[in-house]
């Protein structure tokens, strides 16, 4: 019976995807369709926008969620890969590829009008690969200063420090954005737009500010206490991890992932390990899967506790902040005992985990579960129904479901807007298909929904751990892996549910022991990209509160 159903389901998927293929060929007859790890469609750059639009607007299976936008220097040509999937079923994925051979003045068409999240990503691609996007309303470089010489992710980039000397001079912020648009006649027009009006009262929230949770810079135009417009500047701590990775072996790259979103360090690392394991066809032992899942969930609780604590602190309740940190400390102690690290826990390796659980692990975790449930009740009494806190969160910073999908806001924030986007449910990995847990969805889309979602997800994570903790099987903790891992030529994707949303890894391998191109999808970047939208017309103090409820982590953005 079950098998029948599954067969039927597979058949359905097959059917739907066949229809999609037909649709693609109908729209763009010249498209090249390949069955790789994902269905890959290559089109010329002038047809991409049309195809993306058709795919987004088709009724049977709308591909309306732009997961990743990856710029690649393919040698001859500079190209972009778009990983699209359907917002109703995240497992229906499709890769669009396009590129241009003009390396001097590469121009592609923007899809910002279809997917808002593309805007920051396209600006990132411009900064790092030099591809300009026609019709993107704001073509300033993201991460890099406008006067940066060279495009770092190009293979012929000259990393000579003399080209980009360290400057100690104060540089004025430029609020004029260049752009390139196509008018009705099909001519390209280059012009500039002013981000702010003449008389705008602009305050700089960041890069050094107690509540930006890192080195983030929001240029905020105020009308009294009300936020009129926000302009995001990022890149103050950009470390070029993707570029660095291109000259490191896969096991060496692993330690970078802990340093992206350091609060979901273990989950990020899990994502990269999964990508490599899938590509190298390594079977992970079951014991390792158990340990990974338990550690991931502990990591999620840890992160959500910190998020809760920081959000309360942003709203001015310092005491709640300390309570959150106190509970988190217990998880950190468990991490320390398991794998010798507290924040950067360094546990996953390709093929399994680095450290086995220690003898008292089960006992410690179980007592933590009891303790944490008690504390969740206390949080509820202390803060969740406080009349001031409610006034600061309910109906503040509303993000609609459409906008959540459009801005690719995933994680507790996306689920707070009513979008079921939990990768653990849609594309189960590790042991998530074997455990029972609820995907917490609220439809209000305000700060309070995101706040409650986090607390409820802590409860769900405790529930998942409870189911696994007593059943950890005996066996190896790591599969036999060759000393030098060489991935076969191809493109590999993996997607995991990190604490702030979907974390993704893209590896393009050319058969070497180094990746040819490695890209991380950072959930925080999507969260930040939605900030200007949801903070508009809110009070400046709520801007801080909304930031706390979105809970972005800056190193995750500034890879």
């Amino acid at each position, binding site marked *: 019976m079950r098998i029948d159903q599954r067969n039927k389901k597979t058949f359905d998927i097959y059917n739907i995807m066949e229809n999609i293929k037909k649709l693609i060929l109908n729209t763009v007859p010249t498209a090249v369709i390949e069955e790789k790890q994902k269905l890959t469609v290559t089109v010329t750059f002038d047809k991409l926008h049309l195809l993306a639009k058709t795919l987004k607007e088709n009724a049977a299976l709308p591909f309306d969620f732009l997961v990743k936008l990856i710029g690649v220097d393919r040698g001859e040509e500079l190209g972009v890969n778009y990983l699209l999937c359907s917002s109703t079923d995240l497992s229906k994925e499709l890769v669009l590829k396009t590129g241009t051979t003009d390396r001097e003045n590469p121009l592609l068409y923007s899809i910002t009008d279809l997917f808002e999240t593309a805007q920051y990503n396209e600006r990132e691609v411009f900064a790092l690969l030099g591809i300009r996007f026609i019709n993107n309303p704001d073509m300033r470089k993201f991460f890099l200063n406008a006067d940066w010489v060279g495009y770092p992710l190009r293979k012929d980039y000259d990393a000579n420090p003399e080209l980009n000397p360290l400057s100690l001079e104060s540089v004025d912020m430029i609020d004029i954005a260049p752009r390139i648009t196509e008018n009705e006649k099909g001519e390209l027009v280059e012009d500039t737009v002013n981000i702010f009006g003449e008389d705008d009262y602009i305050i700089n929230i960041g890069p050094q500010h107690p509540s930006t949770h890192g080195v983030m810079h929001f240029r905020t135009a105020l009308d009294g206490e009300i936020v009129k417009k926000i302009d995001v500047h990022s890149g103050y701590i950009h470390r070029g991890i993707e570029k660095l990775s291109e000259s490191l072996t896969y*096991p060496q790259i692993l330690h970078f992932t802990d340093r992206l979103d350091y609060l979901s360090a273990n989950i990020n690392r899990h994502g990269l390990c999964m990508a490599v394991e899938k590509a190298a066809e390594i079977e992970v032992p079951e014991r390792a899967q158990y340990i990974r899942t338990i550690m991931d969930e502990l990591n999620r609780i840890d992160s959500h506790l910190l998020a809760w604590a920081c959000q309360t602190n942003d709203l001015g309740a310092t005491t709640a902040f300390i309570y959150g940190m106190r509970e988190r400390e217990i998880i950190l102690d468990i991490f*320390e005992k398991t794998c010798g690290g507290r924040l950067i826990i360094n546990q996953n390796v390709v093929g399994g985990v680095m450290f086995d659980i220690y003898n008292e692990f089960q006992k410690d975790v179980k007592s933590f579960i009891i303790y944490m449930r008690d504390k969740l009740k206390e949080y509820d009494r202390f803060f969740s129904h406080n009349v001031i806190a409610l006034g600061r969160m309910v109906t503040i910073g509303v993000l609609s479901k459409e906008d959540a999908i459009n801005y690719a806001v995933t994680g507790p924030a996306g689920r707070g807007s009513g979008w079921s986007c939990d990768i653990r449910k849609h594309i189960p990995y590790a042991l998530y298909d074997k455990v029972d847990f609820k995907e917490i969805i609220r439809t209000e889309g305000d700060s309070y929904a995101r706040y409650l979602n986090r607390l409820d997800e802590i409860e769900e994570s405790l529930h998942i751990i409870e189911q696994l903790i007593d059943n950890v099987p005996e066996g190896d903790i790591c599969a036999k892996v060759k000393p030098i891992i060489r991935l076969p030529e191809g493109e590999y994707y993996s997607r995991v549910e990190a604490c702030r949303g979907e974390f993704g890894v893209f590896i393009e391998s050319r058969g070497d022991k180094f990746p040819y191109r490695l890209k991380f999808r950072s959930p925080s970047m999507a969260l930040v990209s939605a900030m200007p939208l949801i903070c508009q017309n809110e009070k400046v103090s709520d801007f801080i509160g909304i930031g706390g409820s979105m809970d972005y982590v800056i190193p995750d953005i500034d890879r």
Partner: protein
Amino acid sequence: MRSIAKYFSGLFIGISSLLKGMSVTWRELWTKKVTQQYPENRDTLVISDRFRCELVMPHDENNEHACTACGICQMNCPNGTIVVTSQMIETEDGKKKKILDTHQWDLGMCTFCNLCVITCPSDAIKFENTYENAVFTRSKLVQKINHEGSKLREKKKEVKPVEAKPVVEAKPVVEKKAVEEVKPEEPKAE
């Protein structure tokens, strides 16, 4: 009328929620404080065995270590924290042999990724949980972790890895090369 009822119910619900919050802080006022009293609690402070603080090369009572100066740790280190220098000597029976001169480790650069330890073929290095590593100058962070005058421990067991590695040794270490043997560390008995 309804708006008046709403006004007062809002007032009282608000006040009761505030009092509830105050009851939580009142209870917390008397709970056990969690601050670690470092350094007074140094004697009772338990740092996990696995906690990675300092790279050490265990030496036995004869001042002998297990490092064969193969340089695999250096090659595996993602950010050039380890520099192994070796010298060629001639043993009594006339064979040429490479021995460890200095094994230098930079605490300031290390990201504690543990790759050097898990890839070491002769288990010569490990991370210790000695956590008080603060120094006054940066140059002191660069440490030589093999002891003065120490020698390679002669053991039959270790002959094998030493011979198995000449290929690796021949290559220049500048080129980053991964020779990873994922060798899961056994759980240390608590």
